[in-house]
């Protein structure tokens, strides 16, 4: 138990410290790198609670894909973040409001489960004990068996969002030379090369 507490405080401390560095670092690329460190430690915290599947998915999806794109964009765009920072105080009230709402929600969730513990037990599908079913299987049960239609609809929403993004950015330009891969592959020596006998001193 002592070891687990030690790791909890280690992950939690690094997560909070690097989250603080995300908003205080001067260089935006450093901010993103600290964000990645925060994700990493959050994955560690997931591991400590026994949610190993969520921890790995957090790494694969957020750190391995989303944060790479973040870093990609931040590195490519030459945004003058120093100028943005001077306006930071203008946005402070909105940020504070969001923070207060989040804190209130957290208080409701934690307070609710301590005041009436029976609420926590009213989950629609009781998750079996860890000894019977690993949490990968339990998540699979919930997502793909009990709530498969909702899962499909969520996928559809993402599909619509993706099509929207493509429609917004797709431009058919006519003056661009495109490759036709199948035409390139279909080329044979017969269609591509012709052998010409050139007489000396005459050329073609």
């Amino acid at each position, binding site marked *: 138990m002592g*070891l687990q507490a030690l790791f909890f405080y280690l992950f939690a401390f690094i997560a909070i410290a690097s989250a603080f560095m995300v908003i205080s670092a001067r*260089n935006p*690329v*450093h901010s993103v*790198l600290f964000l*990645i460190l925060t994700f990493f430690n959050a994955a560690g915290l997931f591991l400590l609670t026994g949610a*190993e*599947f969520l921890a*790995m*998915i957090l*790494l*694969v999806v957020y*750190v*391995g*894909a989303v944060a*790479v*794109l973040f*870093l*990609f964009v931040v*590195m*490519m765009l030459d945004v003058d973040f120093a100028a943005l920072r001077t306006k930071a105080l203008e946005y402070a009230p909105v940020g504070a409001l969001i923070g207060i709402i989040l804190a209130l929600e957290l208080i409701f969730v934690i307070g609710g489960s301590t005041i009436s513990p029976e609420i926590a037990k009213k989950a629609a599908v009781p998750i079996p004990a860890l000894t019977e079913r*690993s949490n*990968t299987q339990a998540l699979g049960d919930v997502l793909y068996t009990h709530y498969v239609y909702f899962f499909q609809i969520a996928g559809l929403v993402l599909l619509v969002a993706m099509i929207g993004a493509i429609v917004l950015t797709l431009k058919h330009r006519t003056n661009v030379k495109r*490759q036709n*891969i199948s035409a390139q592959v279909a080329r044979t020596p017969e269609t591509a090369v012709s052998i010409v006998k050139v007489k000396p001193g005459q050329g073609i």
Partner: protein
Amino acid sequence: MEQFFFTYVLPALIIVGQSLLLLVALLLFIAYILLADRKIWAAVQMRRGPNVVGPWGLFQSFADLLKFVLKEPVIPAGANKGVFLLAPLVAVTLALATWAVIPLNAGWVIANINVGILYVFAISSLEVYGIIMGGWASNSKYPFLGALRSAAQMVSYEVSIGFVIVTVLLTVGSLNLSDIVMSQADGLGTKLGLPPSLIDWNWLALFPVFIIFFISALAETNRPPFDLPEAESELVAGFMVEYGSTPYMMFMLGEYAAIVLMCALTTILFLGGWLPPVDVWFLNWVPGIIWFLLKASMVFFMFGLVKAFVPRYRYDQLMRLGWKVFLPLSLFFLIVTAFVLKLTGWA
């Protein structure tokens, strides 16, 4: 005090000892894989390859190591110093960290975790950070271009690798790497009434997926023909242009550790891990680790041959192959596998 020793100190010492043993063995293996790579390349071009240091050049990698370590590390004036030095460390640490879950033999694994394959996938998807950080922190044009290329490339090919892994998982029903190997003890051959042999392994039943995985593994580890991030004919050395001495060596070490990891992963997912090719007594008598190393070396031999034979892809061809060929194909085979398993009741 005695209880404290037996519950905390002793297990920790054992884990540290196992990790050190694995690391030393792995680094030795990488040293010779590097030499093999150069020798294979040389043999294809009808050269001799490194043959001066030691008999047949066997100590070449160690001479290179000394050379790298004894040189002065140069940090460019405009570089972001912290990130510049952190990048090779990240590359090598992540590449070595993955080995914690790789089973080399029945029970020979440091951390036999439930989600082993996901862990490997997660950590290998992080390896791109070493390259991006190195390219960005160098504060120079070519490294930056190399970093951008590798970011796009590795993210693209991860998608098809992910689908291939899911296809294998469907046939196995477990995320544990040891379970994946053991599930290959019976398969196609035993269903036909043959004794357990190499046709039971996943490579035959999932042959198209195996090919997709092999090619995607080349792209994921930035091996030729997909070495666009360090394409020397256009980007000098890509993201490593500004690196020299020990930091450069660490990048190379990370790269080769990732390559050997992909060879080991191919062995585990498709070539039956430590299982002997035919179930007869004298082959069963050979330790599983020998089979594992043989298979991994064979996969690396194919990596080496591809490097020597195949010309480098153009970047748009690389992207087309990843998104328009491998992604639909691997998705198609995933669905086909799921249907076959469901309809035949083999799952």
